[in-house]
Each structure stands twice: as C-alpha cells, then as structure tokens.
C-alpha cells in the first residue's frame, strides 16, 4: 500500500526509483528532471542547448564573492605611489578628461588627489602589490589572478550592480547564476543550482535586491535561492512544529496517491512533475540543514576561516557555507558582502571591512585547494566599480573619502582554469584611466562563461523576438588570463 503509486506508475518501488535518479542518468536527463520544461519547447532556444557545454570546461562551478558597495582599489590592490607624492594637489584636467561625476562630487570645486593611508608591499613569487589591510590574501598572492583594468558604464550602485550581475544596467534580465543554471543544469538532485548568501559589513552599506539573482525571462527554476542566516536556511524549509519527518513522509505518500488519481483522470504530465517536485522538496529538507550546519567542521577548518564563521550570517560563515554548497555540486554560489561604500571615513571603515573579508576569502581559496576542488571551482572577488583617486568631502591628515569611479577597478579570480599569480591590465600612475588591456563587464562575463565551457555568443534565450545573451551584443574572452 505504502508505495503503491510508484509501483503502479513506474513499475518499480520508490527505493529503486530514487536510486535511479541519483546514479546512472546522463546529465541531460537529470537536467530535464530537475528543470522541468527545459526540453519542452516554449520560448526556449533549444538549439543552443543541444550539446552543452559547448566545449570542454575548465571550471565546473563558481563562487562569486561580491563586495557590494565597491571597495577601493587604491587601498587594496592597485598601488599608486604617485598619489601619495601628489597628495592634496588637484587632479590634473588632462587626466580627468571631462569624465562625468556623480551628483555627490559634481559641485566640488577642487579634486585633491589622495594617496593610500595604508601601506603596500609586494607578495609572493608574482610580486603582487597588496595593502596591509589584506594580510591573508597577501599570503596566497600566487594563487590569485588580479584584473586591474576592469571598467563599467554605470556610475551609481543600482545600475552598476545590476550590470555586473545581469549584463545590463536596467531591465529584468537573468543574472549570471541563472544563465549558468540554464546552460549547465544542476549537479545535485537535492539542491538548487544557484544559491545566494547575504552578509552585512561594518562600513557604509548599500542594499542588495532580489533582481540581482533573478531568473529574468528564464524559467523560474533558474532563480537564485536565497539562503538566510535565520532559523531556516532556505525559506519555508522547516517542517511545522508537531509534524516530524515520519509524518511528512507519510503525508507525501498520501499526497502522491491522491495526485496520481488526478493524473489518471486528467492525463496532465504537470501532475507527475508536481509529484517529483514534492519529492525533491523533501530531499532538500534533509540535505540543506546538513549542509548549513557548520558545527561538525573540524577545528583546523574553523581556524582557517576565523571564529566568526560559527556565527550564522557573517561573511566568514557564508564563505564556509559556500564551500560546502559548492562541494556538494551547487553550480553557482553567489555571496554579497555589503558595506564597501566609503564616501567618507574611509580610514575608519575600510579596515573593518577588510578584517571581515580578508581572512575568510583567502581561507575559502585554500580550503578548496586542499580538497582538490580549486581546479574546478572558479572563485571571483570584487565589487561593482572603483573609487576616485581624489578626495570626496574633507581631506584631513587621517581621513578622507572616495567617490564612485567606473573607469577602472580591480577584481581577482582564482582556481577554475585561471592563471595563477598573474596580474592583467594596468592603470595610469594616477589610478584614474586604464592604460593597458581594458576589461569591460561584458568581457568579464564572456570569460567566466568560457571557463565553464560555454560560448557567450551561443548561450542564448529567445524572448520577445530577440535572442538574449548575458553579454548582450558585446564581450570578448580575455584569453591571456586562462590557464
């Protein structure tokens, strides 16, 4: 009686049925199971999905450590002694070249240059310049690939973040993680392919919003699933009080029987899909709490990430959770760490931000490495634009602020087929303009997709008459950073 529906419908018992799900299915079949509608037609561009990935991938998964608010490149990785030399002097017009300003500094009459308050030193064999704020990253300099010539078109947070995440400043386009979920499917039958983790820093913050992890016009199974630090790591995950797992299992069995009767009446395949989705929900209920429980992590791991990693909702805890999710096959883990918007009080806030982000970011890279996962996991660290080389507001001896600067900023990547110990691109001695190898946001997206075996021109989805891409109509793969 218990599993009658399965025996009837599938001619097998449940154990057999679920067993079949977990092993022995090709990725395409598994994809279609987890992503209903994937091969069903509709507006999907089916041709583009056939034979995905397009070529041999270097990375299988991504962990994107987004530093929300835009950390200053000038106090982190883009060392500009010239600014210290010319400290307090006005930004030469020949450098500024009429670049537009935000409303916050456009009525400043002077643009005094400001050098980093924090000291820089070279690290590792690669000799990367890293400021004293990031000692742990400095230790793994030879694992990192810095791109110092990132540039974007947006000058304010909302459009810039949206651009970094979806490839367009405005509009409701799918985000990177959704594109990868769409293009590559899920590796784990118990977990969503795209997970999102949020943390708040101690500096001036800018919000994040669900548009950043939206599925846009893609099927909503590709939407990022937000994990929270509260009682439920995934919304509505916990069984209600008074109903235990046994009760739930029983309910699902009854439900499946009832739904199967409905299927016999209507013949609608959606009913069978719903039965399967309830089964996956049930499995998620076990898999997710196991994953998000970091209490069983050994001491040496806790030491790597720092003690805050035991406090749910901190950036450190999210880095550790990101590793666990990624290790379990989650295609895209997206972190957002807020608080990097230092318009003022930079010397007060940035050390706090760095303290929170430095150790655990580096720990994540090394943790992946010691597990042999770094080669197949791409880690990305960076914000949505850079910060100005001149001061915003008061410049006094010990403190200053920096406004938004879209013309250049620095990010780093590690693992996943990216060259180690490398620096790509260069800015001028004022840290204002790019002088070598610019990398546009579209180029960055094209490169990430390439590392995952996807051709950014072929990963398309036809929506309202147009084939959309993450890279819109531009983007070129930055080959020199690929190992």
């Amino acid at each position: 009686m218990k599993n009658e529906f399965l025996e009837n419908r599938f001619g097998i018992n449940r154990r057999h049925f679920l067993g079949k799900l977990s092993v022995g299915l090709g990725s395409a079949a598994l994809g279609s199971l987890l992503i209903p509608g994937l091969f069903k037609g509709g507006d999907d561009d089916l041709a583009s999905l056939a034979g995905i990935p397009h070529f041999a991938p270097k990375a299988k998964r991504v962990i994107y450590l987004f530093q929300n608010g835009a950390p200053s490149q000038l106090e982190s990785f883009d060392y500009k002694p010239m600014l210290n030399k010319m400290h307090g002097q006005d930004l030469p017009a020949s450098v500024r070249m009429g670049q537009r300003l935000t409303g916050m500094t456009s009525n400043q009459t002077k643009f005094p240059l400001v050098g980093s308050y924090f000291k820089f030193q070279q690290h590792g064999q690669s000799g990367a310049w890293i400021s004293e704020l990031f000692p742990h990253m400095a230790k793994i300099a030879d694992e990192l690939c810095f791109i110092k010539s990132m540039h974007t078109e947006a000058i304010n947070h909302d459009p810039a973040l949206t651009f970094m995440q979806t490839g367009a400043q405005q509009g409701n386009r799918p985000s990177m993680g959704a594109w990868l979920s769409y293009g590559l499917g899920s590796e784990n039958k118990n977990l969503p392919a795209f997970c999102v983790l949020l943390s708040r820093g101690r500096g001036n913050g800018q919000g994040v919003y669900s548009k950043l992890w939206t599925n846009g016009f893609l099927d909503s199974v590709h939407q990022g699933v937000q994990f929270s630090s509260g009682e439920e790591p995934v919304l509505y995950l916990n069984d209600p009080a008074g109903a235990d797992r046994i009760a739930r299992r029983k309910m699902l069995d009854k439900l499946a029987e009832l739904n199967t009767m409905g299927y016999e009446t209507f013949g609608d395949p959606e009913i069978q899909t719903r039965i399967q989705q309830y089964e996956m929900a049930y499995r998620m209920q076990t898999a997710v709490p196991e994953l998000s429980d970091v209490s069983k992590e050994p001491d040496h791991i806790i030491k790597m990430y720092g003690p805050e990693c035991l406090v749910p909702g901190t950036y450190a805890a999210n880095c550790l959770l990101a590793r666990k999710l990624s290790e379990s096959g989650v295609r895209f883990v997206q972190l957002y760490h807020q608080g990097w918007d230092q318009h003022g009080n930079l010397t007060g806030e940035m050390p706090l931000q760095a303290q929170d982000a430095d150790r655990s970011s580096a720990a994540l890279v090394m943790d992946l490495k010691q597990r042999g996962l770094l080669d197949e996991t791409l880690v990305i660290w960076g914000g949505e634009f850079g910060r100005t080389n001149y001061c915003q507001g008061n410049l006094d001896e010990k403190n200053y602020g920096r406004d938004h600067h879209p013309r250049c900023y620095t990010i780093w990547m590690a693992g996943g087929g990216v060259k180690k110990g490398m620096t790509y691109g260069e800015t001028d001695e004022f840290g204002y303009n790019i002088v070598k190898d610019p990398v546009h946001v579209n180029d960055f997206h094209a490169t990430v997709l390439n590392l995952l075996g996807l051709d950014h021109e072929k990963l398309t989805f036809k929506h309202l008459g147009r084939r959309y891409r993450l890279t819109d109509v531009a983007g070129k793969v930055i080959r020199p950073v690929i190992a």
Partner: protein
Amino acid sequence: MAFVFKRRFFLIARWVIMAGTPLWQCTSSSSTAERIPDVVDYNFHIRPILSDRCFKCHGPDGNQRKADLRLDTEQGLYKALKDDPQAFVVIAGEPEHSELYLRISASDTSMLMPPPSSNLALTEREVKLIRRWISQGAKYQKHWAFIPPQPREVPETDHDDWAKNEIDNFVLARMEAQDLEPNEEADKERLLKRLSFDVTGLPPDLALQKKFLADASPDAYEKVVDALLHSPHYGEKMAIPWLDAARYADSHGYQDDGYRTMWPWRDWVIHAFNENYPFDKFLSWQLAGDLLPNPTKEMLLATGFNRNHKITQEGGVIDEEYRIEYVTDRTNTFGKTFLGLTFECAKCHDHKYDPISQKEYYSTFAFFNQLNEKGLVGDIQLASLADPPRMSISNEDVKRILTFINKKDKDPVPVMIMKDSSKVRPTHVLVRGAYDAPGEVVDFNVPTAIYPFDTAKFGRNRLGLAQWLLSKDHPLTSRVFVNRVWQEFFGRGIVKTSGDFGMQGELPSHPELLDWLALDFMNHGWDIRRLVKQIVMSATYRQSAAVSERKLRSDPENIWLSRAPRLRLPSELIKDHVLASSGLLVREIGGPSVKPYQPKGIWESSTSGRGVLAYYVQDHDDKLYRRGMYNFIKRTVPPPVMLMFDASNRDQCEVKRMRTNTPLQALVMLNDPMVLEASRVLAERLMLENTQADEKISKAFNLILCREADEKELALLNKYYEEEHQTYAAAPDKAAEFIKQGEFRHEEIKDTASLASLMQVVHTLYNMDEAITR
C-alpha cells in the same frame, strides 16, 4: 456524451490578403518534420524565417545593414544587387536565378548565408520553403499585425449542437483541419470552479456549488456567469494582469526603495473594471486623463498609470540620466501594453526586426517627455511618497467623488499623476540611447508603418496619442487587448507572444478569430465585460481539461484548443483560495497594501538600512487575511512566495507570466504559516460542527477541491485520518504543537488528537495538485 463528427469540408475563412490560400497547414511552431505546404505564404511561412535569421543584417536597422540589402521590404526583395546590377535578390518564379535562394543553399561556406559565424542557420525545410515560395511567384505582404483587422466570415460548421457562439465556429474549423475533435463539456463542478476562479479569482462557495448543481434549467450556466461577472470581485481579478502591465508597486524601487502611495490608482483600476468602463475610456483616462477637457480628479488619478515606474532616491545620481530613464519606461510600457510591440529595442538603434526607427522611438518618447519632473526629487532621508506632478486625495474627495477609494485615515494621500508643462520640451534623438548624447530634435510622432499619425486629426499630445490608438482602423489596439483577455482564460494568447506582435513574435494560431473578436469588440463599444462573457460562454471554454495520449502527442501545447487547459492558479489566487475556502478571507476591496506573514529578515538582510521600508513590520488581524493582490510589493524584495509562483516583480511592464512547477513551491504549500493556519482554522470550524469525521473530511474536500470526493479518494483520506488519529492520540504533545499555527483566534477544542488529525488531512488537501489548479 460523445459527439459524432462527420468529416466534412469546411469553408475556412480566408486570411484576406492571401487570395484564398488555405492556411490550415501552418502552425505557429514550425516543426521540421512538417511537410511543405502546397501554397507557401509570405506572412505565415517566409517572413518568420527571414526575420529570425536575416533581418539582423538585412532588415530595418539602417546602421547594421550589410551589402545595402534589405529583405524586409517589397522594394528590397526585388532589387538588383549592389555589386552586380545584373543579378537580383529575388526573381519571381526563378529560384535558381534568385540570389537569396542561391546564397541560402550554397555549399561553399564562404558564400553561404547566414554566415556560419553568426551562429544562425536555415534548416533544410526552410530552404525548401523559400524555394517554393519563389517558384510560386514570391509574393510579398505587409506584416499581418500592421494590416487592420478584416471582417471575417464566421465559418459554417455542421455542429451547431456543439458551437455555443461564433468563437466555437472559428475554433472548431481549425480543430477539424488538424483532425482533432473537441472534448466533452466539463462536469458541472469542475466547470464552476474554473469559471469562478477565472472571473472573480475566488473559489465557488458551498452554497453556489449546491445551487448550480441543482439548477437543471438550460440557462443555469449563464445565470452563474452573469452573477459572477457582476460580483465586486470581478474587478479585482481583472485588475491583476493590468497591474503587471502597469508595473504597479508600493515602493519606488532602486537602491533605497522608499515607500510610495499609488494604491488609490490601484483602487481605481478595480473600480473601472467593476463599473465596466469601456476600453476606450479606460485607455484614454490612463494615458491622457489630464488632457481631457475639465479633467475630474478621477481622470487625473487614472493617469497614475504612467507614473508607476521606478524612481530613484539614491543620493548623487545624475538627475537627467534618471529623468530620461522614467520617460523611457513610460514609452516602453506604452509600446508593450497597448501596441504589443518591443519598443525598447529602438531606444539605442533602429529596431532590428520591426519598422520602428530610432527617430520614431524618440518621436513617441516626446509625448511622455513633457512633464515637469526631476530624476531625483529627494534622497531617502527627505523621501516623498509621491514625486511631482502629484495630487492629494482628501477625505472630502473620497466622500464626494472618489468613493471607490478605500481610505483608512484622515491624512490626505498623495498620488503621482501626469501633467504636461505649459511649454513644450524639445525632444532629441539620444545617440546610442545615452542621456548625455542628444542628437537631432524630433516632433511628436509614432512608428508610421503601424498606422500614420495624422496631425490634422490628432492633437500633438498624449490625448492625440490615445485617439490615434482608438482609431477605427488601427491595426493593433483592439487585437492586442482582446488577445490578452483571451490569454487570461486559455493560458495562452491567440498570439502566444502577447507582448510581441512584431515580426519576431509568433503568428496567431487563429488569425480569423482574432480579427473577428477585435472588430466585434470595437463594434460593441469596447465592452470588456461582454467580451469576457463571450469567452466563458463558448463551448471551447467549457470543455473538459482531460487530455488523451493522442491529443497530448499531436497537440502538446493545446494550440488548437481541443481541450480546456489545466492551469495552475496565479500566485495571488493561491492565497485567495486558501483563505476563502478556510473561511479566513476578508473580502474588503482596495486600500493600502498589507504586510502578511513573511519569513523573518528578508527585508532586513538586503536593505541599505535607510527609509521606512528598511524593516518589515508585519500586520495583524484582518490585514493578515486580505486577498493576495493587496500584499505589499516592495520592489527590491517582492514577497518571496509571489515570486516563487511566478508573479511579476513589478520592475517593468509585463504582459505575460510564466507558469512553473518547482520544489520551492512545494515547500511553500507544505510549510507556509498562512497555509498551515488556514488548515487549522478550517479544521476547527469543522470540529465545531455536529458531524462525523468522514463528513468533515468530505466537506473540507468540497471546499478545497470544489467538488465531491469520489469513493477512492474518500477511502484514502478517511484511512489517513484514522492513522493520524492513532499517532496524535499517542503523542498529545505533538498534537498540541501542531494546532498552534497562526494568530487567528483559537477555538476551544478539547479533542486535540481529532483536531490535529483533521488539520493534517485538510493540509494534505491544500497540497493536492488539483487544489491549486483550475
């Protein structure tokens, strides 16, 4: 009962311009296995191929055009080649001498079109189609959607016993041509459920179920239809898709995402549907109520439609950049809502597929560019609930004129409205769409290939634009709206891409029906309620949703409507159903949006920390039990359950929702406190009735599934109840825990084991696929 369908040659209504070509071969999805039709039609077979694969480089966009060759115009098709004046793109009747055919069939990849580097290719069948089309004379036609709807003869059918109205004749003719026959009529219970949800968004209550089942009169169905169409909840249901199109929300969007009060506008939309404002009035007031002679406050309120776009409050933004963004949003929303076109594609360059030049885009933009508005009025600290131009609604207004507004307190409510400044602001083409790159100045105009804007007839303002839309022979306005109403009842428009009637959109599955409906709608005074009644009275609508394997195989998408579609309820209606069937629903209409249960920390974890919406303050009492459409929509963090069930995030105009089926939806139905509370409350109410457990279960089934349970189902549920009862009787602590759900008043029920078991059964019923499917 089964109909016997005799094979008969149907008089198929013609697609007028095609001079008698029967169109029954064409489907909107061109499967490669399909055979090549005897007569190839430009609009239905050729243009879709050219548009999709060729127009990008050989289409309307002058800047991208290669080899000075365009395939989207008649002239371009028959032209001599630029490099070789002896050769022609197309020579009618001679594919072997037509460069178009030679290039798409070339074996030399350096000659082949489209070039392999474009990642585009023609299938063998498509090449054959083009060949045959050229052989048959290569006749060009204007894009179907830009030809005004033509009077269509209602196809004759033999089956007057099946057809209830004209819709059915059109549908049946197509079905027959596909070798399909209609399903039987749905049983009365299921039909009532479908009708009630489709028309009012609410389940039929037990009294209505009983009355309808008992009514054997021939017009029993029509009586229910009329009653539901005049229910005040009709306006609510009709408003939901309109709120998507109008991107209505309760916050400004962008970074800080402060509070705004546009809900009186939402109340007006419900009112307008309930009062059955004709569509021409509904449209004119929203687009241009402020420009009507002596506009009333109601007309001004209606113009809020144009102000529902996002507004930034991020300190430091460049004012003009955002002002342009708002005008752009209004223009795009106008294009999609009323014309069903992807206007936004022409913002930065000429449209790649449709005849909308960038200049025309900005000429239309000019209509919406006349407000005295700012990109940034005040940052979040100095936030305003409504940026100018705005009006204030007082209690006096509500008492006297705006009686439909559900105003709760004495404070005046500010609402954003339209008001053009007295001096015309010159509008420039913006080079590459950039706010700081103004090009030539443009006059008020529209994409003329759609329908010319005659300045002798139409004023040079939004009112003129509204009149232009409502011209008798406008090709799009009526079709686009009728199609969207159809979509609400069949889950799919006659034009599937309801937001794109352009070249890249899908072709109508029933072009003659669409034309007939569009004209009929206009000829009957744009009467929306009448249109809805026509649809739900049709035999097509009343069919059963059961699908045989044969139909599933031959028509998986149900293009030919030989069955009723089974559709999962939209997000808002799932809440409505759970609350209504459990007796919790508060049937109040309109008013400020409400904040029901929501998992902790969702707003807090993503906020910038500024503004009154930084923290989610949950409401209590009645506000927990309002309809789903009144859930507070904070744009940057819309209610998570709404998104999981595919509601719009109200970021921008949307005219079609997806319908997905995911594990997260299962988690919501299993664990959302709203669903659990409703299960508890319904179980309590049933416990208070003097009935046996099986009667209680049977009644719950009636309320939630809107039909009698069959014996098998009852047997299973009763057994389940017994098993649960044993469990809970042995574990009274668990029972006590389980029945704690929700803030709603708890009834004194001593037999907690029975209550918990009944609640478990009710909860299972809510989780059935059929419960949330209509």
